[in-house]
């Protein structure tokens, strides 16, 4: 199965390398959002608690702007039937999930240092911030991938992706904000506070449920 996942993932990477559709969407959206937030705040001093919320707002909404693309492109190009013919549902889901995880990881590698630089503040517990963002990345990619599969077949997609994803991804965002607040303000805080446990547990539940549901969504 891992062989199939790798072949499918490589195909998605090659397609993205040619079209750059998802990567352009996610990076442009995040940079524009970050710029807008930075200009609206200006030189006013804002608390670290609000900064934590702003960081996660930028991350979640950038992810929402790009994740729906992964299945939509298969439906729009009428290649979904081709995929159904040549591959099993589980490797398809895993390859798409892997692609969305990689996409968001690349974004985070750019947006987090940029965010810290633009707002010029010091992160007191960097390992905790990185761990919470990594777990958040996995959760967002799991929820985003399954909702993308769900809405790809809908005739009126419009804002459907954001509307359906938001309640699923909200726990990741809320716990992520809480973990970021600790990381921004508390030096020497533990690496595994309850926020990390909660994020990990939610990731496991979301990933497993998505994997189990995908077969029904994909073949229905």
């Amino acid at each position, binding site marked *: 199965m891992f062989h199939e996942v790798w072949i499918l993932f490589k195909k998605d990477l090659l397609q993205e390398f040619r079209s750059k559709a998802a990567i352009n969407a996610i990076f442009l959206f995040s940079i524009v959002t970050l710029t807008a937030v930075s200009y609206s705040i200006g030189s006013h001093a804002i608390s670290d608690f609000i900064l934590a919320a702003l960081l996660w707002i930028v991350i979640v909404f950038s992810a929402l702007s790009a994740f729906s693309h992964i299945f939509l492109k298969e439906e729009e190009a009428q290649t979904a*039937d081709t995929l159904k013919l040549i591959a099993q549902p589980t490797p398809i889901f895993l390859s798409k999930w892997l692609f969305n995880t990689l996409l968001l990881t690349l974004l985070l590698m750019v947006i987090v240092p940029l965010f810290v630089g633009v707002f010029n503040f010091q992160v007191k517990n960097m390992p905790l911030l990185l761990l919470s963002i990594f777990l958040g990345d996995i959760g967002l990619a799991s929820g985003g991938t399954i909702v993308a599969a769900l809405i790809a077949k809908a005739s009126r997609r419009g804002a459907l992706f954001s509307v359906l994803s938001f309640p699923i991804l909200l726990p990741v965002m809320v716990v992520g904000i809480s973990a970021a607040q600790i990381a921004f303000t508390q030096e020497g805080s533990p690496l595994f506070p309850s926020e990390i446990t909660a994020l990990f547990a939610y990731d496991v539940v979301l990933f497993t449920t998505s994997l189990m549901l995908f077969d029904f969504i994909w073949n229905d």
Partner: protein
Amino acid sequence: MKLQVNNLYKRYNRRYILKDISFTAARGQSIALTGPNGSGKTTLIKVLSQIVRPDKGEVHFSIGDTVIPREELNRHIGLVGPYLQLYQELTAYENLIFIAGLRRVDNAGDRIKKLAAEVGLEKHMHRAVHTYSSGMKQRLKYMFALMGDPDYLFVDEPTSNLDKAGIAWVYRLLARWKKEKVLVFATNDEPDLEFADKVVSVVS
């Protein structure tokens, strides 16, 4: 090698597209599906290819006395149809390497060369698929279907978009295929029916 279709039903909304379809085909037999437009030929081909699940009924694929498990079926099936699209941003070669990877084809490069020479696309392998004409795409779809040397070949409108040379090649393929494997094709063209051992009329 055998294909057995038992009492197949498929409906969209409340309308039955397929109703109580049954037939069998063994190795060396070919089945032609005929029927007016909208009668369900394409739906039946999609159900046989495992793209669409039936509401009722069963499709069994077997080699000898062993039924092929569902999770292994896609390695045994090849499909050519107007609705089956290849990846337009990728080159023909990349599309074929992709399917060869999934089907674990040994010496994929040699197989691609051989098939490309057969269908007359050897000089166009490194062009993006979106630059192909509809006839070239149809030839490429045959290559895509044949890459893994499937045991069962399903073809919807075998000669659509093809010129005389292309049609002649497809007829040679169908003649060879009906002897070696299990072939099911949907058509309303009289000349295509010459390649059928049995004709199944599909009426929704």
